[in-house]
């Protein structure tokens, strides 16, 4: 009798007869077997193949692809870089996912046995900070505007990255950065690091200049050979004015947020050129009364042909910015 009463409280789906139980067990076994078999494949499939490359004394770059987010690249479209100081490693940006952060940490450990002592998030775009989780035991610093944006939008950024890259994102959760070190410049392990606050790309964009090596970690204030993105820019004129300031800095090597290293001072010029063209194109289109779909189909000056994703990012920028130009033209 007690058994019967137990059975009667089970939900209907659990009242399996013997045949179903046997098949159920076989099914579970099959699922288990599949898991075991696929795990090795998955490990290979979700390898970002991060290969840090030394680009200056103590300075290493992990260069991302010049692509947009996809299930193939898993979000590895971003540059992250680190400085191996005598007092430990300073890491500039953490990549798009937990897996990326973990693999980055392993890659750093293959180069130095020094611990990571400081992590910097340049800004609040998901490809730059969603690897934070792998460095949750380290002090992570960012501009206060970045911290606010990550607190507000981090989860929805992570959600959309799940949609764009799929299982590469598994387990990724937002770790909100804290404040920057109080010293500026920060003298750490033989490196003098200056932090500079800008706004042109997202409203809170951090640039780090290593005055010891002359390396400028520009974050997404500078894209090079990869079309710039505009979803949160406070305005193209604002961005251009800040690029003028950036060009005044005493640096020898610029690490852009996306694209190759620049030791010829070309990256900022390319940014200025494209931003000026974009601004002029959108202004003229608005004055002529073009509709947004017409603007998206406008020709792009061939001098930007070598920049990857220009057409794609141009139509995104039209969506972000053209309504403002249209309003100004009324």
């Amino acid at each position: 009798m007690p058994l019967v009463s137990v059975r009667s409280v089970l939900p209907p789906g659990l009242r399996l007869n013997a045949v179903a139980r046997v098949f159920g067990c076989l099914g579970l076994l099959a699922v288990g077997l599949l898991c075991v078999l696929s795990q090795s494949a998955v490990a290979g499939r979700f390898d970002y193949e991060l290969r840090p490359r030394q680009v200056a004394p103590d300075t290493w770059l992990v260069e991302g692809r010049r692509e947009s987010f996809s299930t193939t690249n898993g979000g590895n479209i971003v540059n992250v870089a680190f400085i191996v100081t005598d007092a430990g490693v300073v890491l500039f940006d953490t990549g798009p996912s937990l897996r990326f952060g973990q693999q980055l940490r392993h890659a750093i450990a293959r180069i130095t046995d020094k611990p990571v002592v400081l992590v910097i998030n340049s800004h609040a775009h998901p490809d730059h900070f969603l690897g934070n989780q792998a460095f949750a035991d380290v002090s992570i610093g960012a501009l206060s505007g970045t911290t606010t944006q990550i607190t507000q939008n981090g989860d929805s950024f992570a959600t959309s990255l799940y949609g764009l890259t799929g299982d590469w994102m598994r387990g990724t959760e937002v770790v909100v950065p804290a404040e920057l070190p109080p010293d500026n410049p920060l003298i750490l392990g033989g490196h003098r690091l200056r932090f500079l606050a800008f706004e042109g790309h997202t409203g809170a964009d951090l640039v780090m200049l290593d005055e010891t090596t002359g390396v400028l970690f520009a974050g997404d204030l500078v894209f090079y050979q990869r079309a710039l993105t505009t979803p949160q820019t406070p305005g193209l004129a604002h961005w251009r004015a800040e690029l003028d300031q950036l060009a005044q800095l005493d640096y020898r090597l610029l690490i852009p947020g996306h694209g190759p290293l620049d030791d010829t001072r070309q990256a900022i010029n390319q940014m200025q050129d494209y931003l000026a063209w974009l601004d002029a194109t959108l202004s003229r289109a608005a004055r002529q009364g073009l509709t947004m779909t017409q603007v998206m189909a406008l020709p792009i000056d061939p001098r930007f042909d070598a920049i990857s994703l220009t057409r794609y990012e141009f139509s995104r920028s039209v969506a972000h910015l053209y309504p403002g130009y249209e309003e100004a033209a009324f």
Partner: protein
Amino acid sequence: MTIRSRQRPLSFARLGLCLMLGLPATLPAAEPGSVASGGQGSSVAGPAAPDLITPNALQDPLDSPLWDYLRQRFIGDDTYLFDPLVKVHVPPFAEDPSQVPVSVDARALAGRVERMVIWADFNPIQHIVTAYPQSDQVEPQLSLRIKVEQGTPVRAAVLTRDGIWHVGGSYLDAAGGGCTAPSMAAGDPYWESHLGEIQARRFAAPDGVLAHGGARYKFRVIHPMDTGLVSGIPEFYIEQAQLRGANGVALMRLELSPPVSENPVLTFDTGNTRNVRLWMRDNNGNEFETAVSAQAEGG
């Protein structure tokens, strides 16, 4: 007209959408009878008869499972054809699903255009706008921005005077969420004190857009265009608009639905008109009207 055999793909998805919309689940089943009616009846082949050949069934170039249902709803059993002369311009993807630009252009059609019905197949509210050109002083063309809930075909069915519908369409890729996200206005009281404010401007014909010295009129009106699909925010949208020329002559009449984006931007192309006005009324009975001032011209 083509003859083809067809199966009914994704009928479960169709049913699911109907259920989601609160429509009777029997709606799709009502279609078989329409095979006999009209010249272009929908073809229905149940899963049991996958190779049934139905005469006069046109293959939807966008292969949407909702085509027959929505065709029935918007143009009934009228004669239609898929016509590449009806251009529906959409971006390659919806960067902002609450503000997707759409331009419909039926100028290439020979016959006079009487009506243009624009909809998005996979939106929870499919109908976007119906435009009735009422004068040869206005082009059968309309640009506006819309909300989409997911990737969807965007259609324009254009009725010419001979009674034939010319159907154009484009597929819009989107991640989704434009219809069921609250309007920006819902979080910002700005609209309350600016409701119905209209910005308007006449543009000399942009290069390659209009010939013979025509004019373009662009309007932007402050309105939340709430869909009613967000909890606690009732449907509140502009449902009628009319473009009027000199002496109040009607140029084009519009019937709008909530998928038109918040703070609608409407673009019309006309002949060399002057003194154009736009009149609008929302579903709460508020009326708005503006004239385009002569000074606000540009080129």
